[in-house]
């Protein structure tokens, strides 16, 4: 008999390894329930479907109890994979976990390969391709915002948006096709300017999605945040409060931070790599030493810069150096925030006024007392969002395959518009729209010529 290995029952730890209170061991496959019942009491029956049952997991042979667990049985097809699924919540101890998995394996289960649960879910049509990819992203997501964005893809918001775009292209295609296939009728011929502007709207929608790819990349790969300021302006203290642990050496002596210090943290859901440069004096020296070019490369590789000044003192030569530097090399290349540190020590209004000329958001903080640090975090997030033209709830493209498909669809639509403007043969125009539909179809699912005809028949009174 020919059969696919889906008959296997697979097992794996599905929570991250390491410390925690509870771990979940998951089994999927037609024998999942039978395997469980050999090592779990009380035995589960079909009417336990989707109910949490407390009991004990024991060795198959010796009956020795391994752990008290909560077990949930999800009967096929209403489960994550579409197959029978058993989830065993046990205490998170590597020895317990290992024993439980061992027992299921000796009962006939096989240790799952990475992603195999999701692959089965996909093969059983529990999710479409974009959703399956989202699962991988959810698991890999390191931060809250990244997770939220993957979850939006998983819940289908992304698919829905693509479907909407597909639908609009289908509408356009049906107009062109109706004109090609039914012109014997006195159909009202479409208006060219209207089609052009509708096509442009679709392009804009795709552009907006494509634009989120950079933001998606930030979420996946992290934001590089660069701290700039003269020695002893408080860069290290700021780094510490942002990272919330003592890492950089804080001292009253200028120039304590001799090397670059990198720290990874999360700010408002963004994975952030904070780079604390040496004081600006050294930075400028470095520019002189290494040449402007290399230093600029360093600047330009960051996603956001915090330019730090002291609020309680007039600007000194080092500060002016930095301002010159910001104006000359940073302005319009990398977004930056002006940070006025040491607000606990008083305020120099002249300093504030002069810094306003940089025309960047100004945040007054005190790294020492922690004043306005939350506000600073908000401001960092806003800058990143504004820079990517996004709102927090936007659907984000994070997958390179999707980006590529969207790029191609956009290209086809552009060709369509250009062709229509130059009076190109409608057969060619129609084929551009078909290509656009095909490319989007690679993301979620295809649109057939039957769909197209259905649409034409529902919109136009055709036929003699």
């Amino acid at each position: 008999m020919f059969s696919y290995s889906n008959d296997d029952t697979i097992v794996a730890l599905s929570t991250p390894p390491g410390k925690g209170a509870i771990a979940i061991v998951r089994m999927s496959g037609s024998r999942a329930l039978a395997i469980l019942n050999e090592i779990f009491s009380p035995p589960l029956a079909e009417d336990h479907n989707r109910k949490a049952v407390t009991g004990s997991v024991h060795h198959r042979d010796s009956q020795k109890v391994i752990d008290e667990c909560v077990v949930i049985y999800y009967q096929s097809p209403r489960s994550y994979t579409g197959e029978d699924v058993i989830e065993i919540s046990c205490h998170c101890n590597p020895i317990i976990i290992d024993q439980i998995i061992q027992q299921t394996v000796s009962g006939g289960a096989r240790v799952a390969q990475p992603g195999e649960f999701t692959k089965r879910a996909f093969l059983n049509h529990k999710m479409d391709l974009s959703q399956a990819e989202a699962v991988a992203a959810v698991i890999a997501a390191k931060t809250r915002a990244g997770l939220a964005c993957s979850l939006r893809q998983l819940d289908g918001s992304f698919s829905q948006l693509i479907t909407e775009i597909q639908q609009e292209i289908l509408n356009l295609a049906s107009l062109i096709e109706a004109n090609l296939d039914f012109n014997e009728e006195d159909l009202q011929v479409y208006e060219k300017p209207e089609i052009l502007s509708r096509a442009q709207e679709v392009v804009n929608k795709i552009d907006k999605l494509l634009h989120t790819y950079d933001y998606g990349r930030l979420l996946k790969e992290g934001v590089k945040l660069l701290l700039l300021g003269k020695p002893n302006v408080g860069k290290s203290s700021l780094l510490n409060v942002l990272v919330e642990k003592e890492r950089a050496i804080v001292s009253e002596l200028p120039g304590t931070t001799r090397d670059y210090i990198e720290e990874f943290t999360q700010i408002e859901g963004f994975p952030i790599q904070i780079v604390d440069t040496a004081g600006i004096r050294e930075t400028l020296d470095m520019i002189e030493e290494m040449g402007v070019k290399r230093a600029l490369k360093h600047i330009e590789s960051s996603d956001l810069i915090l330019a730090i000044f002291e609020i309680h003192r007039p600007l000194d030569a080092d500060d002016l150096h930095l301002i010159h530097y910001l104006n000359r090399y940073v302005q319009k290349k990398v977004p930056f925030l002006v940070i006025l540190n040491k607000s606990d020590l008083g305020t120099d209004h002249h300093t504030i006024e002069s810094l306003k000329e940089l025309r960047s958001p100004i945040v007054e903080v005190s790294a020492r007392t922690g004043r306005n640090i939350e506000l600073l975090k908000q401001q960092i997030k806003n800058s990143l969002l504004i820079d990517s033209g996004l709102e927090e709830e936007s659907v984000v493209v994070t997958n390179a395959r999707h980006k590529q498909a969207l790029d191609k669809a956009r290209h086809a639509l552009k060709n369509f518009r250009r062709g229509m403007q130059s009076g190109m043969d409608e057969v060619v125009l129609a084929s551009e729209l078909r290509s656009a539909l095909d490319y989007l179809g690679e993301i979620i699912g295809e649109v057939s010529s039957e769909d197209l005809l259905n649409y034409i028949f529902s919109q136009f009174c055709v036929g003699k």
Partner: protein
Amino acid sequence: MNRNYDVIVAGGGHAGIEAALATARLGLRTALVTLRIDTIGKMSCNPAIGGLAKGHLVREIDALGGEMAKLTDRAGIHFKILNKSKGPAVWSPRAQADRLQYSRIARQVVLSQPNLEVISASVNGLKVTDGKVVAALLNRDEWIPCRALILTCGTFLNGRIYIGLNSFSSGRAGEMPVRGLTEALVELGFISGRLKTGTPPRVHRDSLDYRQMEEQPPDRPPVPFSFQTDTLSQEQLSCHITHTNQQTHEFLRMGLDRSPMYTGLISGVGPRYCPSIEDKVVRFSDKERHQLFLEPDGFDNPEVYVNGFATSLPEDIQYKALRSVAGMERAHIIRLGYAVEYDFFPSYQIQHTLETKNIAGLYFAGQINGTSGYEEAAAQGLMAGINAALKLQDQPPLILDRSRAYIGVLIDDLISKTILEPYRMFTSRAEFRLLLRHDNADLRLMETGKEIRLLPDAAYRRMLNKRQKIEQLLEHTARTSISPQRFNELAKKTNSSFITQSVPMRQLMRRPEISLKDLLEAAELDDGYSHDELVHVEFVIKYEGYLKRQAELVEKFKKMEHQSIPAEFNYHTVSSLSSEAREKLSKIRPASLGQASRIAGVRHGDITVLLIYLEKYFRSQEPVSRETL
């Protein structure tokens, strides 16, 4: 009587004619069984052949050696190329034919065909031995042995006509239906369904006031349908256009309570692309008027076909509504419009050769497969005839794929799609529209027509000559440059930019405003190329990039087509297919992964799954693991 045939064709309509002529011409003893000899080749609906996408089919039939284009050329009274304002790929020839003459010529061709006998009877049953057709039952009393049976019964299987709330058994207005054949097929395990189609009233030409209508003259000179016809000499007639109005719609609405459709008398599904006038009025109630296209029936017959006014409403309503139309105030109806409901056999039951999957030697062609239209029927009849003959002569079958011909699109659609309404060809059904033009049907298919020995040598030689001239002209344009003196005059006329030194003609051809004909004239190189040759070369140059891309898509398409799925493949073992896909795939049994991907309900994911399984399947087919199967 001792009669013995290789092939019996049941039905003398457009499918039957092509099927019978093809098998007879390929050397098989053929009988064409039809209820009445005088209705061979009858145009039951409008007196026109061709039209958008359908014209392509007729040209392809011609290129393979079929008859329809030649019949049309001989009986045509109004030739027109449609879609002339659009790209050459969707230009489509259409002709009005003299209805009586068409039928007369068709009968004459059939009756004078060697190897072909016409029997006036009906086929009411068939005998199957060991899964193979061995005989057909004629008139319920005589078994005639045959090796292949081609059913082309049109709307005659249990046909029932509806006019208002009245209905009666009939295959076509005034003709008997065929009984017993559906039942015999169902007994053999076939699934049957019911479809509906409609036809408008025919009015007397002398009762119309053409002055109130818009005249639509034919093309002059008329362009023939057949690649083998040189010129057309018949007198040509005009068609006329008029429109319904609010008053008409009001009358029609008043009759809805006596409509067999709206009262649920008819259960069969009608075509959405050819809705009845009452349907148009109800579904598109905001439309102020609908176009009516008046087609003359010919010189001798005074009937005029009111295209666009298909209806099954009662007589009084038909009169009132029709007479409210400009120019039709005194219209005299010769024959009322009616709806006809008939049996068909959902076409997943046939293969690409049109032979049924269940019974060897049994072929279905035309409306029995759920299609509508003379051209669709003729194309299937021709392919069924060709394939029946090839099989009886132990030759490989002829299957045209979707990248080669509209005929290929048609048959593949029939087999892969669930037919819910009478199927009609549209250009949008063809993925490779730029490649499948009506003017290159000869270049695409005549090689094949000659190979199967159906196409006359003279036609083939003509094609070779055309191909040679095309190549010559293509080379010519690539090699020859044109001087500024000669070109700039043309540039002035066409608002094109001037040239300062000689430029290859092909390069100038890329300018949209420059036509090949003008360029050849300017260069004084006009060497008597035919219209088709010029069109072809111009197309190939101007659409070069698109044609290249389409050719790439064809390659991609062919890869999927060549991923064959074994006939015995058990989809039920593939648990990860969606249940809808599993059901559809088991029912349709696609021959390739490509065909599978075109089945409604089979999704992208299903194809991915199938790919994985097929790979495993073929691996497991290797000799080592054979016993594990």
